[in-house]
Structure formats: structure tokens, C-alpha cells
């Protein structure tokens, strides 16, 4: 698996993602600065990390979504390259239009930073094939703007097409239908608020995030 991790000014989970990818795949990813205009040839996974890109100015993810590198990422996604957006990365993917809906301020207004219980709603994706359908896992979240919003038609379509990958077992931030992560219609883009890269080895306390990277490795080789 040849992976790339995007880095914006204000990203702070880029290294964690890179370490997780290298730990699972054995190959260190390429780090792609926000000014890059091309994704290197042969990349089969692009990870968009958590953090506070551009200081969350205007809206979380808004500035990053208009950066040169995201045009290249959108092109690559259109060619079928797998794209994983975690936390701020999920916000960026909605702002750039690769995923529907938007992530608003948490309904409780508080920054939520803790491990949360999640249900694997779809294990038929390249991101979640290593989990059992309906399995309950726990992965940490750390966000202020994780309240997923979309209109009823979009929510119905996401659910009807099995594009809700992960759901919170109970409300964490007010997200519509407890959505924690969604997949695009082609199945190669996942955005999620929880941080799988933070639970990949026993020293992290849990390893529930590891299977997401193992699923990707199995899918893209």
C-alpha cells in the first residue's frame, strides 16, 4: 500500500496517521504539504488528518478544502483512489464536496474528548471489511464540530445505500441519526469523526482502530 498523508497548517494528527499506516502496512506514507498540486503516482490511499487546519477560520475545514492539494485529492478520488478523512479531515471532505452534509458545532457546545462506543453499521466497505456487521467498538473522539447535519433526503439515501459506516451507540454531539462516519456513493471515500489512528496497538489501551487500516491494506494491497 502506497499512502499519502495530507498536511495543512494547523493539522496535528498527521504524524499519528502516518505512524498508524506505517505500523500496519510496513511502508511510511508520503507527507503531502497543502501547497502541493499533484498526488504522487501510484498512491492508493490518501489520508486527510485531524487537527485545526488554518485555525478553523471561517468554518472548520473551509479553508483547507480550497487549498491546492485538495483539488489534487478530489481528482484522485474521482479516479478511485481511497481517501480517508479523520475528524478535521472529515470536515474538509464535506467542505470540498466529496461527502454530503456538513459538520456543525456540537449540540452540547462542549468540546468532546473521550473514547466513545460505536456500532459498525456497514462492514461491506474497503474501510470496514475487517469488522463484524453490527459489532460494537470503541474509538476516541476529540472535536468541537462533529454534529453531522444533512437534509432528510440525504440522510435517507445514506442509510438506504448502506453508506453510514459507523454510528455512535448513544448521542455524542447531536449528529443526525447518530452518524459518526459516512462513505461516498462510489465507496472509495470515508469521513469519520472518531480517530482510529489513536487505537492501533495494545499500549493505546485498545486496538479497535487497527482493523480499519488492515481493511484498507487488504483492499488496496
Amino acid at each position, binding site marked *: 500500500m502506497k499512502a499519502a498523508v495530507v498536511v495543512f497548517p494547523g493539522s496535528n494528527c498527521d504524524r499519528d496517521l502516518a505512524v498508524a499506516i506505517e505500523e500496519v502496512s510496513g511502508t511510511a506514507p508520503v507527507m503531502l504539504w497543502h501547497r502541493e498540486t499533484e498526488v504522487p503516482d501510484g498512491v492508493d490511499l490518501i489520508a486527510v488528518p485531524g487537527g485545526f487546519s488554518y485555525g478553523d477560520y471561517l468554518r472548520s475545514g473551509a479553508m483547507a478544502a*480550497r487549498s491546492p492539494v485538495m483539488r489534487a485529492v478530489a481528482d484522485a478520488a474521482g479516479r478511485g483512489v481511497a481517501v480517508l478523512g479523520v475528524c478535521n479531515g472529515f470536515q474538509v471532505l464535506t467542505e470540498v464536496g466529496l461527502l454530503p452534509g*456538513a459538520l456543525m458545532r456540537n449540540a452540547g457546545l462542549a468540546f468532546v474528548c473521550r473514547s466513545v462506543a460505536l456500532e459498525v453499521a456497514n462492514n461491506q466497505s474497503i474501510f470496514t471489511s475487517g469488522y463484524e456487521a453490527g459489532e460494537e467498538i470503541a474509538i476516541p473522539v476529540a472535536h468541537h464540530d462533529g*454534529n453531522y447535519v444533512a437534509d432528510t433526503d440525504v440522510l435517507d439515501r445514506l442509510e438506504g445505500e448502506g453508506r453510514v459506516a459507523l454510528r455512535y451507540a448513544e448521542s455524542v454531539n447531536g449528529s443526525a441519526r447518530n452518524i459518526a462516519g459516512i462513505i461516498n456513493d462510489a465507496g472509495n471515500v470515508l469521513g469519520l469523526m472518531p480517530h482510529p489512528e489513536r487505537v492501533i496497538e495494545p499500549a493505546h489501551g485498545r486496538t479497535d482502530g487497527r482493523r480499519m487500516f488492515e481493511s484498507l491494506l487488504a483492499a488496496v494491497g
Partner: protein
Amino acid sequence: MIPLKTRIYVTLKPGVLDPQGRAIHNALEGLGFDGIEGVRQGKLIELEHGADLSDEDCDAMCRKLLANTVIENYRIERG
């Protein structure tokens, strides 16, 4: 030359929950300001410019960056 000013108001669409507006509402009530039925928080973005901006450009700026039209409306006020 005094620059021209265009103001862009970005507001949440009706029906989109505004937790910040609700918190402001609660705080106002806590200060004893009764009779307020709802609070919605928005943004004001001021553009200063020398030459006139076309309506098309203002609209494009809002759609492409200044507002997220999934959840927000915008209003352009030419000054």
C-alpha cells in the same frame, strides 16, 4: 479614495439547530432579559474594494467559500 464596502451576512438556514444561538439566549435570560423568543448567530463579512464588484462575483464568492450552502444562507449588501 475611500474604498467601496460590500457586506455579506451569512446565517444558518431556518430549521438548522443553532446551539450557539441557544446558549446566547440562555445567557441573556440569565442576565434578566426576558421576552426574547429566539436567538440565531450569524457572521458578517466585510469586503473592501476599489473597483465595483459585479453581482455575479459576489454571488460566486459566497457560493464557493463564504457560505456553506448546505447549512447557511447569505445576503449581499452593497454599500
